[in-house]
């Protein structure tokens, strides 16, 4: 799979190991070699099955994004208490100085 637009969607490509590795990277998901082998076969079969949606005649059909038509909801612009900071940080894997502690977010050269 490439990320180039306008692929031939009538004959969708099967998902091979490389495609799976690329998609996993996009999804921030490290996958093992064993998983790549297994997922390539399983997801190929799933993709074949779900591609059936392309058979439907939907020329003039509008998509349904939500089951119930709703318009956007805005709450009143009134300040209300947030969750207590300490209670939230207590659930974090690492915290420091009243904040989430995270690994380095920029490369060495940045």
């Amino acid at each position, binding site marked *: *799979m490439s*990320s180039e*637009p*306008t*692929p031939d*969607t009538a004959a*969708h490509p099967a*998902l091979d190991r490389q*495609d*799976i590795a690329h*998609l*996993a990277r*996009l*999804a*921030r*998901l*490290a*996958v*093992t070699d064993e*998983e790549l082998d*297994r*997922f390539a076969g*399983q*997801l190929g*079969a*799933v*993709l074949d*099955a*779900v*591609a*059936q*949606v*392309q*058979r*439907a005649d*939907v020329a003039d*059909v*509008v*998509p*349904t*994004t*939500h*089951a*119930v038509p*709703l318009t956007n*909801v805005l*709450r009143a612009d009134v300040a209300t208490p947030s*969750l207590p900071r300490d209670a*939230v940080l*207590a*659930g*974090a*894997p690492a915290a420091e100085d009243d904040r*989430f502690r*995270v*690994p*380095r*977010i*920029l*490369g060495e050269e940045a």
Partner: protein
Amino acid sequence: MSDLTALSVVELQQALSAGETTSVEVTRAHLDRIAAEDGALGAYLHVDGEAALRRAGEIDAAGTAGTGLAGIPVALKDVFVTEGVPTTSGSRILEGWRPPYDATVARRLKDAGTVLLGKTNMDEFAMGSSTENSAYGPTRNPWDHDRIPGGSSGGSSAAVAGRLAPFALGTDTGGSIRQPAAVTGLVGHKPTYGSVSRYGLIAFSSSLDQAGPMARTVLDAALLHEAIGGHDPRDSTSIDAPVPTVVEAARRGAGGDLAGLRVGVVRELGGDGAREGYDAGVLERVAEAVALLEGAGAEVREVSCPSFGLALPAYYLIAPSEASSNLARFEGMRFGIRVGDDGTRDIDEVMALTREQGFGPEVKRRIILGTYALSAGYYDAYYGQAQKVRTLIDRDFTAAFDDDVDVLVSPTSPTVAWPIGARVDDPLAMYAADLCTLPASLAGVPAISVPCGLSEGLPVGLQVMAPALADDRCYRVAAAVEAALGAPLTDRLAERAA
């Protein structure tokens, strides 16, 4: 009182208000049964008996036990966040996390005076139809411990069917309340989308997720539905409408009179030309249930919903796509576990390692599939097309409800509970379990599963679907089926054990 775990919620209410028992006694009876049975069943992920008994003692002391749901124990699927109580959504990635707040439905049940027994097992992030995808091991079906209890709300179904809880909450994205209810002999209802708050429900597929009740009787399910339903300003998709009169409908339906009600049997779900993949025994029980409805005065006709056949492929594009987006929040920074943060790795590497070790295979498959379906160049062919198919399914429902019928019926699950392990390496076989439940999910309409007998000694469920916000019709029809069959199906499970 002899065996408090054998009583329905309604019977418990009566015993509590008559002073024949106390919330502490009822709670202790369930905790004892959990201690005795759950080692084999695996229905619960977390039980805090001390906290439950303390809470029950408070309700007894306040003198409110038996008023509404006060003093009645309840179990919650582990997908609902509960303040200070471990919540994992069946995933390793949230192991050890204690949420800082309550889901709205958990809060409402607390305010109603219920006693939380514990959190029940589930397929990881509600992805599955067997509860085998839990990171914490499978749950077993109380009817046959070698079989699955359905999923994803399989911990809740096993707990209630096995009398380890009087009733429980589940969630249903593509059938995860109805299918486990069907295969364990319970009543399970998926409310109209948006009619029960999703605030604090760990999101899987936001345009489909809905919380609902699971119980051994229709009236018990209605009581739980009434307690959790209604508008919530904290959920932007919450419908601002009164809760349908489900308790009244359950009582009315139990009278057994369905005169004038128009029932449509969906041809595409187990009817002529659409029987492949269905157990003959399931179709027989469902046909008998339909005959019971006719006997109660309903007008029965066959209805064609030609697009229902495309519900499965549409669902398995929409749900993974939404999941791949929703599950981005599990990155090991704000809650749950973090893997590989040894000072040498940057944030992307730590996220990838955390998600690799925190997620199980089905979650990874769906994230990868969803990422693909949403990629540039593929969006229109997959996700966009699936959303248009969703419109076609909605049109089938609208056409049926506008012109022909008041409710639609079908089997809930094409088969009875299958042996543990039978489908675990074949995603498509697992997905086929959702064949009958997916159309109502995609259209957002309410649907209930009610027991309608046994096949091969295992429970079969009838599904009743109704127009949006007409949940009361589901309860009315379900109660009529229940009344015609005499006693709750789970009574037979208790007799078998005795």
